[in-house]
């Protein structure tokens, strides 16, 4: 979230698309309803299914799954055509005035530079136009036909109301009402928020869907203000933290790239040269990266050995290490061992049947969890395997529950909050921290005597959290914050980190949460002086305890708040610095005489919000373009290119066609269960509330199929087939898509064969195909058939 949960109360309009927060993040309802009651805020719910969020909304707009870019693109077009955008904000704070390279174009569904053989773009024309001095050419009037602004206008001119509604199936009057209502937030003193979750990301164009939200918010001047922002409602209690801490193949902690086996990363100097932009806040990257290396190897990391850079693994430049790539390579027999910490792939991963088969290639598996999961038992007959044929050794380690240990987690609002230990772990269960610690000590023991150079990384890994089975968590927390090695004191925050090896820091974005004053994630002070719900002394928000990101943009180009009701920070001419309610997301001393005064997006090299994403920052285009989901019942009405042209298609033979599999399916969550289900299907209270797996189908489709609620039906496609009960509701209605009636069906994905209550695995039906940038699977908008079981 650029903003945070309580900030929802400051909004004038919440556009909730690809999310169902009233059910999946229920406490959000408290703040959204407060905005509604106290401010008269409007709530808009855009969803294939009429959810409980929709039931509280002022406007409910149905759409066909996977047509989000068409939906938002049409909004962008209408707002530009009717000049409903915030001109001053757009002209000053975005790259709207930048001129684009003469050879950049978009034609017949493709951007310039497409190579059909490689299914890749050459990004050289996705650039700005520069003068002889290398400066970007600009037209502040935004009138030049090659400005980002005019190209944006041109790009979305095809997204007319009629065309969009033919694609999305949204009734036209409702669609217009959505646009007009949300566009109101461009007015001074008004702000609008966009809330999204996996309904936005789980598509083959997922990153571009989120980009389209950002473009819309920039046009309306909604970034950086209270009640605004682009707000990702994340799934698990600490998926924010686990992402911040780089539990992904492509990033270490703090969103810094992992090294790749390529000449540009061959040594520390080359790596820093390649990865460090000359301008913007990321120009500080060497300080963060070298402090990370010091945290990894401490005194073994010296200037002479590149601070241990060569000990960090470098991934292969051509290999796909993302989740789907991992399972494809496992299927080919590449992997031998797998450690799982609270992850249950054969329920939660896509194409579950394939994943179960792939797991059989493992020599060993270690699974740490509170519950016996389906994945731990992938070798059983219940899973569809023959135990005698599965040679995998499986180690199961019992983990402590959240209240049986202490530590911090980060909410979607980036609040790092501490939880204390209430009770000893049940039985012999142990905190994951202790398990990781024990394993590390044991491994370090095994390597202690080794003289092999390849064992240096593990031998030299700095591991000073105690020698017993209990890990000293305080030391871990201090290391994350960072330490000044010359004084031995905690660094105040990441502004104090150095690139000469004199500081160590485990995760630069968290630096500041544990200064000398103490562990600020443990703070519980109630003051909210601004009344905006910032609660600056309640725990700690990264970065630097900033509650609203990009808050420089809450003030106008002269440094005054756009409106007194939504004042966050402002320029104080007497003190010559930025002051206000929140920690400025800006260098506090940059004043009006500095050209950077109007560059609020400090993480970008140019300080501007990007309507146009240059240089292949997104692999599938500088502007989001609508393509149909990989499996779709219709032809793309906007261009001859049917699917995202750069997605990797792993298993073309598994593409289900609309003749045989006519219904668009989505997976979703119910309020009573959580993710792959082990955490709730094993609790008697939750199990009783929603005891069974089902497929949700609309009344009209149910009539066509001759099915009543409770009847058993088969839901199937080329990847699998599941037998479940039909749940017939008014919440799924057919949509008119290009003149033809189309049905959608919904499947909760919480069920599996293990637990107090069991049910069929929805993910047997989802495809092995992901977004072009992130590889997040297309769990929403795939095709199935539904028929009576008997």
């Amino acid at each position, binding site marked *: 979230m650029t903003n945070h949960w309580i900030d929802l109360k400051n909004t004038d309009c919440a556009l909730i698309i690809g999310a169902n927060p009233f059910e999946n993040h229920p406490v959000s309802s408290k703040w959204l309803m407060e905005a509604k009651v106290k401010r008269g805020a409007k709530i808009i719910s855009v969803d294939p299914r009429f959810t409980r969020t929709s039931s509280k909304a002022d406007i409910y707009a149905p759409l066909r799954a996977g047509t989000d870019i068409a939906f938002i693109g049409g909004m962008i077009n209408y707002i530009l055509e009717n000049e409903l955008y915030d001109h001053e904000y757009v002209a000053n704070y975005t790259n709207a005035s930048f001129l684009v390279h003469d050879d950049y174009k978009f034609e017949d569904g493709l951007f310039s530079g497409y190579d059909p053989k490689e299914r890749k773009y050459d990004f050289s024309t996705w650039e700005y136009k520069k003068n002889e001095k290398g400066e970007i050419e600009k037209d502040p009037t935004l009138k030049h036909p090659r400005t980002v602004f005019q190209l944006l206008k041109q790009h979305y001119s095809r997204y007319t109301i009629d065309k969009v509604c033919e694609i999305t199936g949204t009734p036209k009057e409702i669609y217009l009402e959505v646009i007009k209502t949300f566009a109101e937030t461009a007015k001074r003193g008004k702000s609008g928020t966009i809330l999204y979750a996996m309904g936005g990301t789980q598509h083959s164009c997922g990153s571009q869907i989120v980009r389209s939200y950002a473009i819309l918010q920039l046009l309306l001047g909604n970034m950086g203000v209270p009640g605004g922002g682009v707000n990702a409602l994340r799934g698990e209690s600490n998926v924010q933290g686990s992402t911040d801490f780089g539990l992904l193949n492509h990033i270490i*902690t703090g969103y810094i790239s992992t090294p790749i086996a390529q000449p540009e990363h061959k040594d520390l100097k080359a790596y820093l040269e390649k990865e460090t932009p000359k301008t913007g806040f990321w120009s500080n990257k060497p300080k963060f990266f070298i402090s990370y290396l010091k945290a990894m190897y401490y005194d073994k990391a010296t200037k002479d050995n590149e601070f241990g850079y060569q000990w960090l693994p470098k991934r292969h430049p051509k290999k796909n290490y993302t989740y789907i790539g991992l399972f494809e390579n496992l299927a080919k027999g590449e992997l031998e061992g797998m450690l799982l910490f609270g992850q249950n792939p054969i329920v939660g991963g896509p194409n579950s049947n394939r994943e179960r088969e792939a797991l059989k290639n493992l020599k060993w598996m270690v699974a740490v969890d509170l519950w016996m999961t389906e994945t731990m038992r992938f070798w059983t007959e219940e899973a569809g395997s023959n135990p005698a044929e599965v040679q995998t050794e499986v180690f199961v380690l019992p983990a402590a529950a959240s209240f049986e240990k202490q530590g911090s987690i980060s909410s979607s609002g980036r609040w790092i909050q501490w939880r204390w230990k209430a009770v000893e772990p049940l039985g012999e269960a142990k905190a994951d921290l202790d398990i990781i610690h024990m394993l590390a000590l044991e491994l370090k023991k095994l390597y202690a005597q080794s003289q092999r150079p390849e064992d240096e990384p593990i031998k030299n890994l700095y591991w000073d959290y105690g020698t017993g089975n209990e890990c000293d968590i305080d030391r871990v927390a201090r290391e994350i914050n960072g330490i000044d090695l010359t004084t031995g004191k905690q660094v105040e925050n990441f502004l104090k980190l150095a690139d000469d090896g004199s500081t160590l820091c485990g995760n630069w974005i968290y630096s500041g949460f544990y200064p000398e004053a103490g562990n600020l994630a443990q703070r519980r002070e109630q003051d909210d002086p601004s009344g905006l719900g910032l609660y600056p002394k309640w725990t700690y928000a990264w970065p630097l305890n900033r509650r609203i990101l990009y808050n420089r943009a809450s003030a106008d180009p002269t440094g005054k708040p756009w409106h007194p009701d939504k004042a966050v920070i402002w320029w104080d001419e007497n003190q010559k610095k930025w002051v206000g309610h929140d920690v400025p997301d800006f260098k506090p001393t940059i004043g009006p005489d500095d050209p950077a005064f109007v560059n609020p997006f400090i993480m970008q090299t140019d300080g501007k919000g990007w309507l146009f994403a240059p240089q292949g920052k997104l692999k599938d285009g500088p502007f989001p373009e609508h393509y149909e989901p990989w499996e779709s019942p219709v032809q793309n009405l906007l261009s001859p290119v049917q699917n995202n042209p750069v997605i990797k298609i792993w298993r073309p033979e598994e593409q289900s066609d609309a003749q045989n599999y006519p219904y668009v399916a989505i997976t979703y969550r119910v309020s009573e269960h959580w993710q792959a289900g082990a955490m709730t299907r094993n609790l008697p209270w939750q199990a009783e509330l929603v005891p069974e797996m089902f497929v949700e189908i609309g009344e009209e489709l149910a009539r066509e199929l001759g099915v009543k609620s409770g009847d058993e039906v088969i839901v199937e496609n080329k990847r699998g087939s599941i037998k479940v009960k039909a749940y017939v509701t008014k919440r799924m209605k057919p949509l008119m898509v290009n003149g033809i009636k189309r049905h959608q069906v919904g499947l909760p994905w919480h069920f599996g064969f293990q637990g107090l209550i069991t049910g069929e695995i929805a993910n047997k039906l989802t495809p092995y195909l992901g977004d072009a940038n992130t590889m997040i699977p297309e769990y929403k908008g795939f095709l199935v058939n539904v028929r009576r079981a008997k």
Partner: protein
Amino acid sequence: MAITRREFLKLSALSTAVLMTAELGLDNSKAYAQAQKYRIKTAKKTPTLCPFCSAGCGMLAYTDTKTGELLYVVGDPDHPVNRGGACSKGASIYQIRNIAPGKPNPRRLTKPLYRAPGSKEFKEVTWEWAISEIAKRIKDTRDRTFIKEEDGITVMRTDHIACLGGAALDNEETYLLQKLMRGLGVVYIEHQARL
């Protein structure tokens, strides 16, 4: 205190009520005072956070001062995000440990387990054995598959071990996990954020 099914329903209805009154911007002190009635004065309370969604609602875990056992878990009225409210998942945290007073949830894993190749079952093992055997497996695979150099570039990695998961771990745990894995040369590091 025994939390029976009926009392749970009462409590959860109450927490819904707290949520609802707050939704309407009304004074929820009455509901809060009522909620206090269900709490034992002598129980120890420990602030914790809900382990389910990413809203980060505050919870209070009440334990018996004598036995140390968990008595119940309710929304933390001091927490600015939820102000004492809890959704049905948050209201059921107690059952992650006990399904009723004195009755631990029988589905919780409480001992390390091992399944041998081709076997039809798990058997209980000790922590010492499990950790030592796992470390041996990791070392064996790593050492056999380790790549030191590729096209003249030092790469120090193994492509044969994967580490998955972490979205339900604490920050300190995710930090040490990525540290250990990267220390071993593991590059297949992925988790729920990719799904």
